[in-house]
């Protein structure tokens, strides 16, 4: 018990931040690599990159020591809102959605979205329009991805989103995609890493990097803005970008604009609900809806089939446990305890891979059988308990009338037990709808998996999550409704 308590305490403590001298905690993703943020090869404890130098400059100006906090790129906004760091910078793109959900600084760097292709395709693929029918890769949750989604409709290409900026280029080399659209900083880095690729210098679009903070920290944001503006004026920023070989002729124009806008309201400086990202997600929705719906249909078909199997099998197991001889009962009890007591994921693996030596089940069938066998254990327990709760007098009356055991079960016991089993059964069916998402390990793409794909691609969980929840609800509500109506009807017959 003491050990448990300690453990719990430990877990509680790790989440409570230590309050000491206030360094400026700045968040970034060192996996993003140079020239943004990366560990110094000479001294890996030290971070280097232009974002590092900008962060350190800001900290110095604020008179606070800088402290780096490693945050996954895709979690930066979320972590900002949670307050995991004071300011975040790591090649974070400006966007209305972001401006609406966190406090965003003025832009400090202007980048161009550029197309990279294999050398052999240099002439064939010069613009998005040339890529009709082709797969074009990018990083999920970026402006480039939004552009590609637009282009899906306009130019008939297929957008493919990745979680990192390395694999788009390696898959480009492998021929899995035919072009990559990303900002020129990432593209140049990729060009250095890989041979056989070529980047078209023309900008498909331009964007900006910004610094973010928690939505309520507008005070800090304003300080950062002031420091950035000063750094634009006195050449600090130019020196940093030149050092990292990222200075382009676009920057002076950007700085001029930023400095000219000083005093006037910066765009989106008001904060508020994350309407921007929601709007972006709604825009992307029509493209994802068909695949989400068909994933929902798959989920429903799989769940219904598995539940059917579970119910039928569950009835047999329960019958066996109530009426069977001691051996049958023991065997069935072991089945129930093992199937119920061990993770269904493991069972799915055993059925899909473990039995592959004997029978190679297609993934869908393996998923159905696995879920069905697992849920049968749960259903059987519900039925067994419900069957045993039917008053003895009812069974004796049936017996005395000469009904066989099977007839008694069918005509008297099961109908009365079913009423007791209905609510827990409905629970299980509703749970199964969600549990069926486990089968994605068997390469079956159902609703949750499809939602994940959607979310990764648009770089936000909000709308896909809500939509996914709504779809699950849409499947479970009619079921609950039906169950409740049945219950109400039977309630009349309760003594």
């Amino acid at each position, binding site marked *: 018990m003491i050990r448990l308590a300690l453990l719990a305490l430990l877990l509680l403590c790790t989440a409570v931040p230590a309050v000491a001298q206030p360094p400026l905690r700045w968040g970034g993703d060192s996996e993003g690599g140079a020239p943004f943020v990366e560990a110094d090869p000479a001294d890996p404890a030290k971070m280097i990159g232009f974002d590092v130098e900008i962060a350190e400059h800001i900290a110095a100006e604020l008179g606070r020591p800088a402290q780096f906090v490693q945050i996954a790129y895709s979690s930066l906004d979320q972590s900002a809102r949670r307050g995991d760091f004071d300011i975040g910078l790591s090649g974070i793109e400006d966007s209305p959605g972001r401006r609406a959900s966190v406090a965003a600084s003025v832009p400090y760097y202007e980048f161009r979205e550029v197309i990279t292709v294999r050398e052999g395709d240099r002439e064939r693929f010069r613009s998005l329009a040339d890529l009709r029918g082709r797969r074009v890769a990018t990083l999920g949750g970026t402006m480039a991805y939004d552009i590609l989604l637009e282009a899906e409709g306009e130019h008939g290409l297929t957008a493919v989103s990745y979680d990192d900026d390395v694999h788009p280029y390696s898959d480009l080399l492998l021929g899995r995609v035919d072009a990559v659209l990303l900002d020129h900083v990432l593209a140049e880095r990729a060009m250095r890493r890989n041979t056989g690729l070529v980047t078209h210098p023309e900008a498909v679009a331009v964007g900006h990097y910004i610094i973010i903070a928690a939505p309520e920290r507008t005070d800090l944001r304003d300080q950062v803005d002031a420091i950035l503006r000063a750094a634009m004026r006195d050449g600090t920023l130019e020196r940093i970008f030149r050092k990292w070989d990222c200075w382009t002729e676009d920057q002076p124009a950007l700085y001029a604009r930023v400095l000219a806008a000083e005093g006037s309201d910066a765009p989106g400086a008001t904060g508020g609900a994350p309407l921007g990202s929601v709007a972006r997600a709604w825009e992307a929705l029509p493209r994802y809806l068909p695949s989400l719906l068909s994933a929902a249909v798959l989920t429903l078909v799989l769940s219904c089939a598995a539940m059917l199997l579970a119910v039928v099998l569950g009835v047999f197991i329960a019958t066996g446990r109530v009426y069977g001889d001691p051996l049958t009962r023991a065997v069935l009890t072991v089945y129930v305890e093992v199937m119920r007591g061990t993770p269904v994921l493991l069972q799915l693996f055993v059925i899909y891979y473990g039995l592959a030596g004997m029978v190679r089940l297609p993934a869908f069938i393996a998923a159905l059988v696995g879920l069905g066998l697992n849920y049968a254990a749960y259903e059987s327990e519900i039925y067994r308990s419900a069957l045993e709760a039917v*008053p003895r*007098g*009812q069974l*004796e*009356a*049936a*017996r*005395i*009338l*000469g*009904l066989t055991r099977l*007839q008694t079960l069918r*005509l*008297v016991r099961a*109908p*009365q037990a079913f*009423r007791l089993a209905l609510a827990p059964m409905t629970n299980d069916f509703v749970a199964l709808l969600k549990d069926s998402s486990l089968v994605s390990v068997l390469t079956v793409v159902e609703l949750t998996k499809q939602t994940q794909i959607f979310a990764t691609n648009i770089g936000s969980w909000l709308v896909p999550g809500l939509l996914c929840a709504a779809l699950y609800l849409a499947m479970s509500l009619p079921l609950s409704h039906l169950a409740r109506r049945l219950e109400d009807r*039977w309630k*009349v*017959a*309760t*003594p």
Partner: protein
Amino acid sequence: MTTTLRVRGLRLWRGDRQILAGIDLDAAPGEVVALMGLSGSGKTTVLRILAGLERADAGEIQVPKAGMVFQFHYLFEHLTALENVCLAPVHVQRQTRAQAQARAEALLGELGVGHRAHALPRELSGGEAQRVAIARALAVDPPLLLLDEPTASLDPARRNDLGDVLKALAASGRTLLLTSHDDDFVRDFASRVVILAGGRVVEQGDPHQVLEHAQHEETRELLQVERQRKLGR
């Protein structure tokens, strides 16, 4: 006389209480045998053993297929009165549904609950439920019919109706074994009364004879207060 029912030396313990201490009992077709005894003397237990719902610890039993009406009716809660009565004829005796239904309606009518045929058990009054349960047992027409306190919830009028039905059944060759606390009913409709006391049959014979001129202490105890009252009136 063909013996339909023959019981010898029936014994039963519940924990360390001996409920039945060696019961001998016979009944032949055409008889209406009434089992009487104090509450808790084991009447229901005897019927349940004869019906095969309970096992005796010792004793010989020779019993035909029996129907039974329970002290607490045990109607099927999810079925209407009519469905309760039709269930066995349709599923056990394989009668057509129409045939079974017609007979069930006739039976319910005869017992005065025809108008409640489509009510669920929980919508019936105590006496109505009792009569539906009797109809359900009669519908399968078993050679031996066990009735546990069939008159308990019946008013005098209904009680006599039931008595007539039972007498007619016995006349047609069935064997009837019933328990009752109602000495008037037993006197009027039973052909024989069996008095149970201390887990044994202490006396049996013609109801008028036994109930008016009880030979045994236990029988007198059972009826004692009643008789004193009657005398004192």
